[in-house]
C-alpha cells in the first residue's frame, strides 16, 4: 500500500510535466500577444507602421517571447525546478509574490465555505435519506433545489442592495474583507470585523455547493440503506443510530470522497463572480486578469499549481477510499 502511494506520488512528476507542456502550448498559441497589448493602454492596440512594429519586437524580446517556443518552454522548465515562477508581465513583480498575496484570501474564502458546505450537507443528506419522503425531506428537497437554481451573482447583488446600507438595511459590509480603519483596532476587533465582512461572500459561495453535496449524500445513503446488509443489521436488532452512523454512513461516503478530489484546486481557484461583486482580491480575479492581459508567466504558474493540486487531490481521494471502505485496497494481491 505504501509502495502504491509512493509510486503514485512519483507518477505525478511526469504527469505534471505533460500538463505543463500542454498548458504552455495552449497559453502561447492562443491568439493575442502581450507585447501588442503593451503598446497601448489596456485593451488598446494603437496602431502604427514600421516603428510600432519595432517597439513590439523590442517588447517581445524583453519578455523573451522572441525565442522559439521550445526554447521558451525549456527556459520556463529550468526556472520552475527551482520554484522560480518568473516575473509578471504586467508589473514585473515576481509571480510568487502575487500568488502569496492572493492565495491566502482564496483559501480562507473557499476553505470556510467548503467546511460549512460539508458540515451542513452531510447531516442534511443523512436526515433526508433516513426520512425519505417525509415532510422535512420534501421541504429540504424543495429548498435545496431552489437554492441550486438561484445564480449566485443575483443573490450577491440582491444581498448588496438590501443588506449593504444604501436605501435599505445596513447589516453587512459589501466590499473587501476589512473595514478601512481596521488597521488601528485591537486584534479581537479585527477578527470580528473580518468575520462580519465574510458573511455575505461565504454565504454566496456556500449555498450552491451545499445544495449539490447534500443531494449526493442523500442519494448515496438511500441506496445503501436499501441494501441487504442493512436489513441484516436491522434483523440482528442493532439500534437505528448504529446502523446509520456505523454501517451505512461509511459506505455512502464514497461519492462524497470522489468529489473531494476537486477540493484542493477549489481552495485556490477562487471565484470571479463573488470576488468581483464583493471587491475581494482573490485568485479568481487574478486568474481572470492574467488571461485577459496574456500574462504568460502568471498563467503558467496558476495552471501548474492547479494541476499539481488536482493530482494531489485525486491521490488524497484514493487514499480516503481505503479509509471509508476497507474493501478498497491498492495491493497487488488485491487486484490480482
Amino acid at each position, binding site marked *: 500500500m505504501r509502495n502504491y502511494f509512493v509510486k503514485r506520488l512519483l507518477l505525478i512528476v511526469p504527469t505534471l510535466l505533460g500538463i505543463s507542456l500542454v498548458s504552455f502550448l495552449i497559453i502561447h498559441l*492562443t*491568439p*493575442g*500577444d502581450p*507585447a*501588442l*497589448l*503593451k*503598446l*497601448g*493602454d*489596456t*485593451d*488598446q*492596440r*494603437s*496602431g*502604427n*507602421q514600421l*516603428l*510600432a*512594429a519595432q*517597439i*513590439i519586437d*523590442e*517588447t517581445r*524580446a*524583453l519578455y523573451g517571447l522572441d525565442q522559439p517556443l521550445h526554447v521558451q518552454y525549456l527556459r520556463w522548465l529550468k526556472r520552475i525546478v527551482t520554484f522560480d515562477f518568473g*516575473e509578471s508581465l*504586467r*508589473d*514585473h*513583480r515576481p509571480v510568487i509574490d502575487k500568488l502569496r*498575496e492572493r492565495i491566502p484570501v482564496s483559501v480562507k474564502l473557499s476553505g470556510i465555505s467548503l467546511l460549512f458546505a460539508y458540515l451542513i450537507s452531510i447531516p442534511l443528506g443523512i436526515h433526508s435519506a433516513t426520512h425519505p419522503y417525509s415532510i422535512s425531506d420534501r421541504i429540504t428537497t424543495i429548498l435545496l433545489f431552489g437554492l441550486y437554481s438561484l445564480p449566485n451573482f443575483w443573490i450577491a*447583488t440582491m444581498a*448588496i*442592495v438590501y443588506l*449593504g*446600507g*444604501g*436605501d435599505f438595511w*445596513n447589516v453587512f459590509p*459589501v*466590499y*473587501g474583507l*476589512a473595514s*478601512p*480603519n481596521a*488597521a*488601528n483596532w485591537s486584534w479581537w476587533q479585527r477578527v470580528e470585523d473580518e468575520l462580519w465582512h465574510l458573511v455575505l461572500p461565504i454565504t454566496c459561495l456556500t449555498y450552491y455547493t451545499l445544495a449539490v453535496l447534500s443531494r449526493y449524500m442523500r442519494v448515496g445513503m438511500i441506496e445503501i440503506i436499501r441494501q441487504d446488509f442493512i436489513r441484516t443489521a436491522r434483523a440482528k436488532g442493532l439500534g437505528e443510530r448504529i446502523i446509520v452512523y456505523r454501517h451505512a454512513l461509511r459506505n455512502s461516503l464514497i461519492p462524497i470522497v470522489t468529489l473531494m478530489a476537486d477540493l484542493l484546486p477549489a481552495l485556490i481557484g477562487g471565484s470571479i463572480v463573488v*470576488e*468581483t*461583486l*464583493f*471587491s*475581494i*482580491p482573490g485568485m479568481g*480575479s487574478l486568474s481572470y486578469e492574467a488571461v*485577459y492581459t*496574456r500574462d504568460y508567466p502568471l498563467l503558467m504558474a496558476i495552471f501548474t499549481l492547479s494541476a499539481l493540486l488536482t493530482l494531489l487531490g485525486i491521490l488524497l481521494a484514493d487514499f480516503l477510499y481505503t479509509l471509508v471502505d476497507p474493501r478498497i485496497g491498492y495491493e497487488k494481491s488485491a487486484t490480482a
Partner: protein
Amino acid sequence: MMRRIIFLPLAFLIFVSGCTRPGTTSETGAADAGQPVQGDWAVVRFESEPDNLNPLITQLGTARYALTGVNNSQIYEFLMAYNPKDWDLTEPLLATAPPAISDNHLTYTFTIRDGVKWHDGQPLRPDDVVFTFKAAACPLADTAALRSFLTDLADIQVDGRSVRFIMVKPNVYNVDNIANELAIIPKHVFDAEGLLDSFSYKDIVGPKGKSDPKIKKFADQFNAHAANRAPVGTGPYKFEKWESGRELVLTRNEDYWGKKPYLDKIVYRMITDYTAALTALKAGDLDVMPRLLPIQYTEQTGGATFDQQFAKVKYSIPQEAAILWNNERPFFKDKRVRQAMTMLVDRQKIIDGIRLGLGKIGISFLDPNTKDFNPNIKPLPYDPKRAADLLDEAGWKDHDGDGIRDKDGVKFKFEFVGSSGSQIFKQLSPVLTEEFRKAGIEMTERVIEFSVMLQSLKDHRFDASTLNFSHGDLSPADAFQVWHSSAAAGGSNFSNFKNPEADRLLEQARLEFDAEKRKQLYWRWQEIVNDEQPVTFVYYVEESGAYSKRFRNGQWLPLRPGYDLNSWWVPKGLQKYKSSANP
C-alpha cells in the same frame, strides 16, 4: 508619431478605462460659499486596481488618475497642462512657459522651473527631464505605450535650466508629444547609480540601447523598481500608502511649489462592482463615484434622501461608439451601401434604449468640442426607405427571391463581431439584426474575446464589428493612425478606408502650422469621411457621476477622470475626516 487612441469594447462589464483627457461639458452641483479652507478628505471609488504606479509603465487609467490627476498634475507632473479656457496645452507646469520653437519646427526649448522639490526633498533638475525621456526610450524598459510617442525625437540637449528637444521632422503635434505624454520622474530615485549618465538620448535609441550591459541593467532595475509601487513626485499630493486590492492613499504636499490644494487626503477605494459601489456611496463609505451605469444614473440615484446628500453630474468625454464596416468586403465596397447601412441604424433609439439617454448621435471621428470639428456636417438620417433605394441603386437586389439581397451571385450576408463581456454589443446586435433583416440583409453575430477581436480587426478578418474610439485629447492628431491608408497594413485603420484625397488632407494637416488653414483641411477631411461612411458613428459617449454635497466648488473638468480634486474644499463645519483619524 502615434497618438494615444484607445479602442474599447463597448461598455465593458469590468470597465477598464484609458487615458483620455479632455472631455466636454461639466456641471457643478454644490454652490460655492465662503472662503475655501483646508481639511477633510475625498474618498473616491476606483473600479480597478492600478497595475503599477510608474507613469511610464502603467497601462491603466486608474493608475494615471492617481499619478497625474485630471490635468497632468497630482503625484507626478508633466511639463505642460491644459488651460481651462479653451483646453489647449498652454499652461506651464514643470516648464516655466510654452517652448520656444525654432523656425523649421524641429527644435523645442523648454525652461525647467526652479525651486521645485521632489517629495523626498531633492530639487528638480533639468537632468530629471532628460532622464525621464531616456528611461522611456530605453528599448528594454517596459514602456512600449509611451515609446510610440517618441519615435520622432532625435536628441535632447541640456543648457543650464533649458532643455532642448530635437525632432526628426516637423509636426504640429510635436509639443504635445513632448510635454503632454511623459510625466517627469526623479533620476535620483530610479537611477541612483547613474547607470544612464554616460549615455545621451541618442545613444539610447541607437544600437547601444539594446546591447549595452549598463543600459540593460538599468532597464531591469527600472521595470521592477520599488518606486513603481511607491512613487516620489513633484505634485500637490504625496503618495502615502497602497494596500493592494483595498485602497490607495495620497496626502497633501505641504512643500508644493504651486497653489496648494485644500483636501488633506485623497483616498482611492477599490470597489470592483458597480452595485456595491453605489451602495457604499449611499452608506457614506464613498464621497465620489466618478462613473455611474446608465441605469444607476436614471433609476437608482434619486429621491429626497439621495438628493439631500449627493450631487449628480453628467459629463461628456471624447469617445464615440462606432460600427466598423470592412470596406474591402464585396458588400461594403460601395459607399452607397455604407451610407445605406448607416441609414438603417436608428442611432437615437439606441441612445435612448441602451444608453438611457447618455449620449449624442455620432457625426464624425472628432469630438464636437474639438476646435477642428466641422459643425456643418449633418449626420445621415435614420431612413430605411432611402437606404433601400441606395441598395437597389448599388445593384444589391433580391434577384432570386429568397428575401436576401444579392449581387453577382454574392448574397448580402455578413457577420457582426463583438467582444465578450460587452453588454452593449449584446443589446445592439438584435436591434441591428432585425433592422437589417427587414432591409433584406442577413446579419449573424459572433462573440469573441476582445484581444482576439482586435487581432482580427487589425488583420481585416471581419465583415463588421463595433468598438469605441477613445481619444487622448481634443485634438485630431490621432486621425492619421486610424484613417490614413498606410495605417491599413498593421495600423489601426481597421475598416480599410482608402481615399487619396483624405490621405492627402491628413498629411497636409500635420504640417500646417496655421491653425485656421489646418481647420479647413480637417473640415474637408470630415466631409469626405461623412460621405464615404467607412464606419457608422453611433453615438458620442456621455458619462455620469455622483458626489457628496459637502464639497464646495465641486468642479468637473472636461478631462478624464472628470473630478478636479485640486479645487474642491469642505467648510469647517461639514468636514467629515480629520487627518489624524482614519475614515
